[in-house]
């Protein structure tokens, strides 16, 4: 082993961008084909966390209910709204926000948390992004059972718009994929990025209509919601659960984000995919 200050010169850099994009594409294809591994890993993550507790993974649901009860009680007074008016939108907002924010935060450790695998076995890197999505969708599945409880408690029924919820979930999850790949790669290189992202998401929680309603804003401040892509992603799942059809603009922003995000991510991932293992 020897120490040098600079890369050795004269050795050709072998891979052109086209070849790197092909290698990245093959990683994504093989990653999808290995669904058994990521399904198993993702499910195990949930199981492991709650294995030795009495009610197991339903702690996820219980702690969510406690959060909603506490926030609902206080904020309905603060906003001078009746529980009946405030609680449904708060509940669905928090349930969906928990999914979106957990995906973004978890994206940070997609590769750094898989070090023991990545340094031992040549697996497609994208497996660990799918694993993160499985884990968070499982958590969401435990939280979303609160929705029917709410319909029962208030005697409401969302009607046909609820059929749009799976479409919203699909758009959000697909966005979660590129976020996981992009943020996971960058966080392997820059170790202070997780802290930066955590602070950003904290702020995002307050400026996104989770605890408040978009129509509480005066028209001249409505840009806060209109320009916030997280607000659109949120609406794509929350609104159908509340029985309203999301705005067309939410669908446009959600899919636009998907296309733009994948473009940037493919560039970054193709460029740095092979380096991830070296950074761990």
């Amino acid at each position, binding site marked *: *082993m*020897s120490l040098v200050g600079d890369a050795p010169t004269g*050795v050709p850099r*072998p891979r052109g961008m086209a070849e790197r994009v092909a290698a990245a594409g093959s990683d994504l294809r093989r990653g999808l084909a290995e669904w058994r591994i990521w399904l198993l890993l993702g499910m195990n993550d949930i199981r492991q966390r709650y294995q030795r507790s009495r009610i197991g993974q339903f702690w996820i649901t219980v702690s969510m209910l406690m959060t909603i009860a506490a926030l609902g009680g206080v904020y309905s007074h603060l906003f001078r709204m009746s529980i009946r008016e405030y609680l449904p939108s708060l509940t669905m907002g928090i349930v969906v926000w928990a999914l979106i924010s957990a995906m973004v935060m978890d994206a940070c450790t997609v590769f750094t948390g898989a070090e023991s695998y990545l340094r*031992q*076995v*040549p697996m497609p890197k994208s497996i660990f992004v799918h694993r993160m999505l499985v884990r968070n969708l499982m958590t969401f599945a435990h939280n979303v059972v609160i929705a029917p409880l709410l319909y029962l408690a208030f005697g409401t029924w969302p009607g046909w718009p609820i059929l749009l919820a799976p479409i919203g979930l699909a758009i959000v999850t697909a966005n979660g994929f590129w976020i996981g790949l992009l943020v996971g790669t960058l966080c392997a290189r*820059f170790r202070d990025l997780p802290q930066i992202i955590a602070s950003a998401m904290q702020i995002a929680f307050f400026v996104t209509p989770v605890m408040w309603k978009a129509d509480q804003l005066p028209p001249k401040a409505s840009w806060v919601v209109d320009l916030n892509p997280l607000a659109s992603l949120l609406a794509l799942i929350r609104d159908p659960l509340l029985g309203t059809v999301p705005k067309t603009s939410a669908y446009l922003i959600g899919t636009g984000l998907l296309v733009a995000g994948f473009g940037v991510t493919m560039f970054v991932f193709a460029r740095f995919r092979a380096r991830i293992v070296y950074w761990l």
Partner: protein
Amino acid sequence: MATISLERVTIEFPIYNARARRLTGELFRRTIGGKITSNVSSHVSVVALRDIDLELADGDRLGLIGQNGAGKSTLLRVLAGIYEPLSGRARIEGTVASLTDITMGMDLEASGYENIVLRGVFLGLHVSEVRRMIPEIEAFTELGEFLELPLRTYSTGMLLRLAFAVTTAVIPEILIMDELIGAGDAAFVAKAKARLNQMISASRILVIASHDVEIIRRFCNRAALLETGRIARIGPVEQVVCAYLGDDSPQPETQREIE
């Protein structure tokens, strides 16, 4: 047909200082860095392998020898496809099993049976294929009813037995080992050896790194001596081993280590 071909492979590890590890630090360096800092290299790198050329084909059994830090483990990882060279080219064709950490992917909270499936899936099998192999693995481990219990209740020896049994149940085309793996008490060792020998002879290409020249002599038909990241010598086992031990040192027993 399995083949491995390395062409001028150089592997460098960037050693980032705390500042280069930080995005905020990098941003400042790039935006307001100016002349002074741009002359200062942001990171030092360790060259673990330098200009490695290597061709392996069916029937090759290559032994890697060299001192600690010579690059043996890094080379094994390149051959396993874990480190893709950023400089030079590596072409690896064939299914690879790298037995550097046989317990990888095992879950201490899950039962022995669940872990057989988990480990098998990591080795590239379908769940149904692993299930078919369970009786054979079960018999080999001799763990009996312990397989129903979570792994955290196992002793280290038992854990290794299970890991060994599953890992050696799948025969790859290219087999990569860092030292010879073995597991268990005296009675088990004999069984394990037989099984490992069978696995080694069934694989098309074997690459094993070891400090024990006897192991290289026994399993290999070629050897490579690594020195500071370069292949200093490659050829017939006896020649390379002699070069490693030094011509005047007494032959076999010098470097003996406990298996």
